[in-house]
């Protein structure tokens, strides 16, 4: 430290610090001694609990006014109360919005991983260790050094693994990847062995253990344990009795580790059988879709409804880095699961792994049974009006009659005889078609499709031919299906975009549309909203009923401004679909979504979920980034339920006002090249999406993802890929 530094420091310091510094400086000057200064003198240092530093609070959140933070990251309020800084929905089945973000219980993505928001899935494996040859389904690790199978003992009716008779770690790895991305539970029995000798280190967890391990690798090196993204280890017990006094040298315990670092421990009793449940659920970690783990340790002989000791909230791994494209995890990412034992620390009983179905907007199930990717050919769309392109699907589900067992699907879409890519240089014409099916099958006979457009011309586009096409071009259909309480179809309303002579579009609505695909629409719709100063063009109308109150609808649409990327707006419509003045408003902008939307937002698909907790608005959309890549995203907002004077259960409130929408933190939920969309032969881009509930099946959404596919050689085609997703309430 130079003299200048000391002079400066002394000059600027407050009295006590100045005195201290003066003393230090004097010491340094006179004797060359030096003492380590307080941490905050030489730099800010990481903020200990209780202090703000440079605007950052203890947990990385915003600094509180007044500069004080609490242990849990909340701000000290003047009255001593605590306001959470990093709000998280703490309880997922209390009907309350604990974190004040407008989303309640399972509607809040914080609760996507909660037990009440997950449904049981499929058993991945179930092992009781009684089979003569365990190597049929389990791989012995390390693979390089084959050895004898583990010792097994019968304890009552159960077969318990007792480990290997040496002092090296061994593992049995399930022979395929375990899919975890949608959620899973691993459950096993274990007994901590009361050892006759103390373990290597006194008063530390015993170095002899049995564990269930989730690992990103499928092998180990001799003498090395399995790399643990998360491991549940049961450690042995060792006690010494001298003079009648028992001293615990190594306490039996269950430890949760990651990379061999301890995350938590639960003390248990030796020679008591415990049932241990490790639940892995989809979550978010620092804005990234990830997996979270929670653990319950319960004495096996206790009643099942009795909750054991629980620890949890552990980050396991980011979803994007899970194992994929390996056996067991072809479509859903996961990790390898194994049982590892070192010495005689514990015995392992039956183990079971089961997938869960948790509400997770980032996960889509495989294509529903019997469904297939749709093309203009498989839909039976005549080439004259749809041979070059189909897209912008809109989907509706209903029953024909109360006696129907399976719903039927009505699909409206836009079509053209010329590639939409030509629109970069000259106007391309479109028409609207309708197809109906009960199966989403792969054959044209599975569909009843309009032989001529339900709206628009045939052919709709005449650029290449230079012939006399009519100017009428209509596109972006949206089907509003009204059903009765039994999901039986009542009527259709169709919204769509119609091109003006200027090349921009106006949004129109046609009511009471005939159900039959073979019948023309019967009208050209009534204009509802036209381009204005804010939007030079309007596209992608989508209707949502207010549902009670003063009635009417919300019309969501894409606004294309003169400059800047496209964004989403909404307007309030009356019962007769007339525009209520002064209600047009932005609802979602690219800046609110992030860089994946820097090229614009389009194709809004609103869905409303009503529960006793309130009304949750889901707005699905297509986002375009700066490179033109398109993805599917989601934003949500909630209106809480109104109080019911008589204390009864209230339905979700009507959507008189739109709740503020917040983008899902782990957007995008779907990319154009994801395996769930099927093999892409060349280049595949999402161009639109339809989202619909499923008549007669609560909590299931059906998606139809529109893609534009570039094949080797340059041919470009369109297809529509069906997917499903589960949403559960408390």
């Amino acid at each position, binding site marked *: *430290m*130079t003299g*200048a*530094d*000391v*002079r*400066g420091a*002394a*000059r*600027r*310091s*407050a*009295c*006590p610090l*100045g005195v201290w510094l*003066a003393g230090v*400086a*004097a010491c*340094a000057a*006179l004797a060359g001694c030096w003492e380590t200064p307080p*941490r905050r*003198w030489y*730099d*800010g240092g*990481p903020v*200990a609990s209780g202090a703000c530093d*440079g605007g*950052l609070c*203890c*947990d990385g959140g915003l600094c509180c006014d007044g500069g004080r933070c609490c242990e849990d990251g909340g701000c000290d309020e003047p009255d001593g109360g605590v306001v959470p800084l990093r709000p998280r929905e703490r309880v997922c089945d209390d009907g309350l919005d604990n974190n004040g973000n407008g989303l309640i219980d399972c509607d809040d993505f914080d609760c996507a991983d909660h037990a009440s928001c997950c449904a049981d899935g499929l058993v991945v494996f179930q092992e009781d260790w009684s089979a003569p040859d365990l190597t049929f389904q389990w791989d012995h690790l390390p693979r390089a050094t084959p050895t004898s199978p583990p010792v097994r003992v019968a304890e009552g009716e159960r077969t318990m693994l007792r480990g290997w008779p040496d002092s090296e770690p061994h593992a049995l790895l399930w022979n395929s990847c375990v899919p975890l991305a949608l959620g899973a539970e691993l459950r096993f029995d274990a007994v901590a062995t009361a050892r006759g000798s103390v373990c290597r280190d006194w008063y530390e967890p015993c170095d002899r253990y049995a564990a269930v391990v989730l690992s*990103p*690798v499928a092998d180990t*090196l001799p003498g090395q344990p399995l*790399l643990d993204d998360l491991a549940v280890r049961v450690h042995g017990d060792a006690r010494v009795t001298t003079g009648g006094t028992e001293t615990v040298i190594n306490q039996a315990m269950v430890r949760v580790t990651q*990379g061999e670092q301890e995350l938590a421990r639960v003390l248990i009793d030796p020679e008591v059988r415990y049932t241990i449940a490790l639940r892995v659920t989809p979550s978010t970690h620092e804005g990234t879709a990830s997996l979270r783990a929670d653990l319950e340790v319960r004495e096996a002989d206790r009643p099942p409804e009795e909750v054991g000791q629980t620890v949890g909230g*552990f980050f396991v*791994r*980011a979803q994007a*880095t899970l194992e994929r494209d390996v056996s067991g995890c072809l479509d859903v990412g996961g990790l390898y699961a194994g049982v590892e034992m070192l010495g005689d620390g514990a015995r392992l009983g039956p183990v079971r792994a089961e997938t869960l179905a948790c509400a997770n907007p980032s996960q889509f199930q495989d294509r529903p049974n019997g469904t297939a990717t749709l093309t203009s050919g498989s839909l039976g769309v005549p080439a004259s009006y749809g041979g070059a392109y189909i897209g912008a699907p809109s989907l509706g589900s209903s029953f024909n009659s109360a006696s129907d067992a399976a719903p039927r699907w009505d699909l409206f879409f836009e079509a053209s005889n010329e*590639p939409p890519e030509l629109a*970069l*240089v*000259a*106007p391309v014409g479109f028409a609207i078609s309708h197809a109906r099916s009960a199966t989403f099958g792969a054959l044209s006979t599975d569909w009843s499709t309009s032989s001529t457009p339900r709206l628009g011309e045939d052919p709709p586009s005449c*650029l290449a031919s*230079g012939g006399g096409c009519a100017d009428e071009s209509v596109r972006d259909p949206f089907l509003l299906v009204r059903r009765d309480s039994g999901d039986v179809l009542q009527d259709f309303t169709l919204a769509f975009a119609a091109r003006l002579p200027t090349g921009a579009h106006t949004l129109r609505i046609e009511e009471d549309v005939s159900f039959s695909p073979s019948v023309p629409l019967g009208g050209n719709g009534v204009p509802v909203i036209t381009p204005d100063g804010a939007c030079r063009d309007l596209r992608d109308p989508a209707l949502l009923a207010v549902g009670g109150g003063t009635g009417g609808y919300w019309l969501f649409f894409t606004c294309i401004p003169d*400059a*800047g990327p496209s964004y989403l707006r909404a307007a309030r419509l009356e019962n007769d679909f007339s525009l209520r003045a002064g209600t047009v408003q932005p609802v979602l902008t690219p800046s609110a979504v992030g860089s994946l939307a820097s*090229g614009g937002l389009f194709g809004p698909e609103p869905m409303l979920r009503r529960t006793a907790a309130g009304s949750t608005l889901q707005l699905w959309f297509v986002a*375009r980034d*700066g*490179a*033109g890549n398109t993805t599917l995203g989601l934003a949500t907002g909630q209106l809480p339920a109104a109080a019911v004077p008589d204390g009864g259960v209230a339905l979700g409130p009507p959507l008189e006002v739109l709740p503020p929408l917040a983008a899902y933190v782990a957007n995008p939920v779907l990319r154009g090249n994801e395996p769930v969309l099927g093999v892409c032969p*060349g*280049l595949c*881009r999402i161009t639109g999406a339809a989202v619909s509930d499923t008549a007669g099946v609560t909590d299931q959404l059906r998606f139809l993802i529109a893609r534009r596919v*570039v*094949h080797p*050689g*340059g041919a470009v085609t369109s297809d529509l890929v069906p997917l499903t997703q589960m949403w559960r309430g408390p």
Partner: protein
Amino acid sequence: MSARRLDAARALVASLAMVLLTLGCGSDGAISREDQGPAGDAGASDQGVFLDGAVVDQGVPTGLLFPADSARFAPFLAAAQDAFPPVADDRPAPWTTCYASASGCDSAPCSLLASCCVASGRCAELQVDALLPPAVLFSSCASGADALSCVPGQTFLPLGSSTPTVEAGGLRPGGDAMREGGLLVGAPVDLLTDRVDLSVVFAPPSSCPGNACLESAGVSLAHASELALGVVSPLVGLLYSPSRGDVSLVMGDQVRMAWALVDPAASFTLEVHPSGRVRVLRDNVLLTEAFTYTPRADAQVVLHGRNTELQGARLRSLHALRYRTEAPATFGTRSVIALNAPLGVSPWAPRGAAVSTHEGRHYAVVENDGALYRGELLGLGVDFESTQRVTVDASRSERALSAPTLLVRPSGETFLVYAAELTDGSRTIRARRGVDGPLGPLPEILELADAGPGHALDDPSLLEHAGYFLLLVRHRWPDGSSALELWMSDAATTPALRDLVPAPASNLSELTAVDSADANQAGVQAPSLSVRGGTYRVHYERRTGTRRVIELLAADELRAFRALGEVLLPRPGGQDRLGVGSPSALEGTAGAERLYYLGDDGLGERLFVTERPGVEDPTPL
């Protein structure tokens, strides 16, 4: 500082201390802001960046700022006095605000910082090579000529199976309703490292009936692999549409903005930066810079379009400029380096490898079973020898040694710096010193840095620069929290390296802090400090769960660091597929940067090397 000046300074300090102790600190204990500098200075309170009376060197106050390159830093410092509050040693430099947003580096004086030239197309070095022809003039071709071969000295590949021609002095791309036609210009460029400026002049078609004709001409940067499919999906491009009478900025299948083509002789310029910034100019007048795109490696310049008329929409000329920028996250091929065990050493599981250089040769140091080993890197292997082993000195209470790094001075004076775990459980930074080169004996033990009881310092990285020894370590506090921390020498204590002190405040700890609650599942560690292009660079390892990545910070003067994010990620399917860490950044040839690192595949760690192209100190354009 000379010994005499040091003695004088110490005497002055002692006197000042006695004055303070005797007279107290003022009636209200408030911070005194009285100017105690020389007469004729700014006045009663500090008015500028400098501490009045501070010793200055080339305009930089020593002891407050430590520029990597004083001459490079001077223009910013001169401008900073009017733009920022005074610098103090107990808080980061005020120009950390330059890094607060993506556009923070765009305007002066921030734009003068060398660190603002990293990962930015604003600063670059013009490349003159065969990758992109500087000028393509179709006016030199006769009408009807094959556009692929008619331009003197240039040969082009067609887009797909198209047969573009030249008509009336302009390229006719020759596409149709189903596919575009055109030609590929030059070789693929890496837009992650290169800025590209493309200037074109369009020619309108002879006719476009009803303003709805299938005519277009454009220049785009497109993904080379997509072009191989015979289609153009521009990452970014300019497209002329006679139907609309305008030139559009297109990205993907979207028109982002359009400008009327009034004067057919107008030259439109498309400028794309590795940062993603896009600028469009017409006759050198800026039309927009409001858009961003996503750069990619392997991008191809393509002239393309569709025609129905013989003299349809055409392109008369293309001028192309390519600039190389300093892009720290564009490493290429990765190679494994064998760390061969010394004879008789078993087990051999080396950890914490670091690589350093001396007189053009590279040396690796590793830790194995609590001892340190040195060896020379020859090709892709290091043969360690037992004679180079450094073990604990029990007399100095050392229990284990780890995280070694090597610094060799031009004179051959060598420091093997390491983290020493002591018998009381604490961790401190020490060095073994010798004078006989990197593999010579190291008889002396030095105490470098100790944070006190309960604290742990580890993962040292040592650099000697501009008269200072700079030691970057990870500091772990008793509560489990940690952060990277800079210690440094007083210039007066050279050549002896010992008893370093914490550097003045910066935002380094803020950027690298790990809270105690997260310490078991996250970490920031193993930093590597280097100097490049007028900036300090800190490569370090960030751990989340079991996954590790390498991130980068840059700073001009050690008081304000700029976070540049991830620069190296695990490689799917590779032997480093689960994690990369322990970086050592060294200079390559021709501005390249070479990065040594440890890669992990879940079964073991290996030392890797990778390299990236770059420009050490790119010029602001």
